[in-house]
Structure formats: structure tokens, C-alpha cells
């Protein structure tokens, strides 16, 4: 898929934003309310003690802000495409993309940008910069921090993509589609609150807890090379799985359009 085509899709997304102004406003407000709820909850937890779950108040807020940034980055780039993809597959409307001379996987992954989520993404980034201002972080670690956010957002994308691709085989699976969202919500908390078995599963099998906790672990100088390797390798493996499933799904796909 060429950059020219992608920019055209971005332009169409922007035109939709202009057409659905109220919807866009509501999406931004919803993001803000959700973010506020998380911050208020954090303040309430830390009204009980100064150091919880092995994190200070600021570190906890960094965790929430970085995990939210990953989530909003995913939403900005991919959620609009994913929102409709399952229905498109089930209703046999993939044909329109399949006959075009583009990579169908990329076309459907990058079909739309969600501009309203970009506002929330911006807010979460600003909050992170504010929270990190008192830390002395080397340039290398700043780059690594950004890479961790990107890896986390990519992991959320891949988990969603894999689950949505199951629509080639399973009908009526709205709740199943929400599984990655459940996992992300579950992982937006410090790793120390979970029992060891859950921690291991979400650190080394589906490393979403590792992804969300990695930025704050980096700040605390507790991110190991093994952690980093697990994140990179899992991103690569899940990307291969997502592509493989898409190809197999297309073989299974049929429609009467």
C-alpha cells in the first residue's frame, strides 16, 4: 500500500470528522472521563498510603499515563478500521478491497484514522511529559521509552487483529471481540498486585502486562534485557500469526456480493 493511498484514507477520515462533529466530540469526552476516572482512582488509592504496589504516586500515574497512551495510539491509528472489520467479514463485504491492487491486510488495518482519539492521545502524552519532568532520563532511555510505547500500541493492535480475524470462522462473537479490551483494562495496573501465575502469563505468554508496565520499569531501572527481548519477539511472532490468520481467513472467506 502506497503512502499516497494512505494519505487519501487519512484525508477521508478527516472529512468524516468534519461531518460527524458531535460524534467526534463525544468520543473525546468519553476518553477524558475515562482518563479522569483512572486518575481519581489513583489519587484515592494513594490517599491511603504513600507507596503502594512498589510504586510511588507519581510512578503509578506514569504507568496509567503510558498505558493510556498505548491504548489511545492504537485507537487513533486502528480502532475505526477494527470497529467495522468483523461485520465486513461476516457480511461478505471484503470483496471491494480484495479486487483492488492493494495489500488487503494493510488496507483494512489502516483504512481509517480516528481523529477524536488523537485529542486524548495528546492529553496523555502531555501528562506523561509533565510527570517525567523531574526525572533525569538519558537520551537513549527517552528513545527506548518511546519504543516501548510503540511496541505496546502495536501489541494491542495485533491482539485485536488476531481476535477480529476469527470472524472468518466464528459468527456472533461481539464479546469475543472485546477480549483484547478486557486484557488491556486488566493490564493497566501495577504488575505487583497480581498473583504470580497471572503475572507470568501476562509477562511471558501474552505479554500485555509487561507492555503496559515496561515504561515505568524503565524509569525505575528495573526493565531487564529479557523483558525487552520478550516484548520484541512477541511483537514479531504475533505479527506473523496475524498475517498467517488473515491469509488463511481469506481462503475460507466467501460471499455472494
Amino acid at each position, binding site marked *: 500500500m502506497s503512502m499516497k493511498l494512505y494519505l487519501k484514507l487519512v484525508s477521508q477520515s478527516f472529512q468524516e470528522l468534519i461531518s*460527524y462533529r*458531535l*460524534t467526534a466530540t*463525544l*468520543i473525546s*469526552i*468519553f476518553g477524558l*472521563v*475515562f482518563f*479522569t*476516572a483512572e486518575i*481519581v*482512582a489513583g489519587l*484515592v*488509592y494513594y*490517599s*491511603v*498510603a504513600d*507507596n*503502594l*504496589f512498589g510504586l510511588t504516586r507519581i510512578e503509578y500515574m506514569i504507568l496509567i499515563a503510558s498505558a493510556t497512551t498505548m491504548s489511545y495510539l492504537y485507537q487513533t491509528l486502528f480502532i475505526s478500521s477494527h*470497529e467495522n472489520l468483523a461485520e465486513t467479514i461476516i457480511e461478505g463485504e471484503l470483496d471491494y478491497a480484495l479486487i483492488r491492487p492493494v495489500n488487503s491486510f494493510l488496507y483494512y488495518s489502516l483504512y481509517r484514522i480516528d481523529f477524536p482519539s488523537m485529542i486524548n492521545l495528546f492529553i496523555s502524552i502531555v501528562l506523561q511529559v509533565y510527570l517525567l519532568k523531574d526525572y533525569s532520563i538519558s537520551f537513549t532511555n527517552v528513545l527506548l521509552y518511546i519504543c516501548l510505547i510503540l511496541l505496546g500500541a502495536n501489541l494491542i493492535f495485533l491482539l485485536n487483529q488476531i481476535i477480529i480475524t476469527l470472524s472468518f470462522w*466464528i459468527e*456472533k*462473537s*461481539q*464479546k*469475543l471481540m*472485546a*477480549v483484547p479490551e*478486557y*486484557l488491556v*483494562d*486488566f493490564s493497566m*495496573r*501495577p504488575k*505487583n*498486585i*497480581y*498473583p504470580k501465575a497471572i503475572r507470568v502469563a501476562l509477562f511471558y505468554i501474552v505479554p500485555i502486562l509487561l507492555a503496559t508496565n515496561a515504561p515505568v520499569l524503565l524509569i525505575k531501572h528495573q526493565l531487564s534485557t529479557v523483558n525487552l527481548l520478550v516484548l520484541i519477539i512477541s511483537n514479531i511472532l504475533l505479527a506473523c500469526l496475524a498475517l498467517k490468520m488473515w491469509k488463511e481467513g481469506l481462503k475460507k472467506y466467501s460471499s455472494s456480493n
Partner: protein
Amino acid sequence: MQYVSIALAKFYSELTYKLNFITGLIGDALGVLISVFVWIAVYETSSSDVIAGFDVNEMILYLIISNLGMILLSTDIVTQMGSFIKKGKLTTMLLRPYSILACNFSSYVGKRLVYIIPYLIIMVILLPSSIRLNYYALVLLFGIVNFFMFFILMQCIGNLGFFVIEMWPIRPLVNSIYLLLGGIYFPLSLLPENIFSVMKLTPFALVGYDFTVAVQNKLTIEVLWQYTVISVIWLILFYGIYKFTFKRGLKKYEGMGA
């Protein structure tokens, strides 16, 4: 009778797609577990055994009941009217000899029935043994009023579908407000007194925090009566708003679908 049939049809439909249903249950359970794990960790770290009048067991009970309540009072229906309007299905519904509100209510009850029964069983198991019968009856009345009040509130918000094309962002917005105002993450009594005294009277607090502490036998009969009356006042107010917005919406409705 027709409303019972609608409710039963929805009930069976919920159970037909088992994978969907079980996945939903697992997702709901994860939501409860997050809060429970967080608060267990808070109690382990804190020097105090009692926080905001709750010891660790009471807090876990609080989180389970309030989170189960949120599952029971699902906000799914908030987008229902919008969908009927967008697809033009409302036209067919208007032609049928039934009340749309009653039809939506039976559909809601049917969909929630699969949760209502286990919820009531869990309630009975979890209720403190010292609870008095008249208190228990009043908690039940408070719960029923809340159920109606919350349904009408969702219908009021759902009527926005007459005026807004895309209704899907409304649901996460309502969920976020419910999380914040309903005391799902933490008991509202942990907030500063002046904020708490206002927040505990909102519809979300009545179905969330207030009902949960009522179940936990932490209210007096007088306060429970007050909350029930406030819930009835909200119910009447929302019903008035629903009728008004529905009438105004119908004037705008074109019935063509989109």
C-alpha cells in the same frame, strides 16, 4: 402476555450463542478481579486495617456487589433506540399495537434475566446474617426501584438517537460516568465529605455505592427510605424527560433509515 414472550425470546437468544455468552462472563469477571486485586494490595500496604469504614473482607464484598450490579444494569440499551432510528426499524415498531417503552423493558429484562437469577442468589448468600427482615424487604424495594430508574435513564439518553447519527460513543461515555460516580472502583465515602454528600444522591451512586452499602447492612432504615424516595423522584423525572424527548424526536423522525 406479548411482553413476556418478548422477554423469553431475548432470554433464549442470549443463551443461544454460548461462546459469546461465556466470553462475556469471563470479561465481566476480569473487571471484578482488577478491583479486588488492587484493593487487596492497598490493604496489604496500608498500616490501617479499616479504610473508609470497610475492613478488607467488607471491601472485597463491596467490590463484588458493586461490580456485579454494573454487569446486571448493563448500558447496552443506551444505543438501542439509535439503532432502531438509524435502520428505520422504529417505523415498524410504531405501527405495532404495543408500547415501545414496555417492549424495550421486556427485552431488557429478558437479556438481563440470565444475570438477575445468579445475582439474586449471590445477594442472598452474601447478605450479613444479622440482617432484619424489614430491612431486607426495603433493600429489595430499593433495588427494584433502582432497576426501573436506571432503565428509564438509559431510555432518556437513548432518545438522543433521534438527534445524533452515531450513538456508539454514548455507551462508553455512560460506562465511564458510571465507573466514576457509581463507586465501582472505590467506595464513594473515600472522597472528601463535601463531594461525597452531593455524589451519593446521583442516579449512578444510587444504583452503585448506595445500593451496595445497603446490601452490606451499613445503612439505617431511615436513610434507606430516603434513598428509595430519591430514586423514585429520579424515576419520575426521567420518565417525564423520556416522554418529552420521545415526542420531540418523533417530530424530527423521517422513518427512512440510513
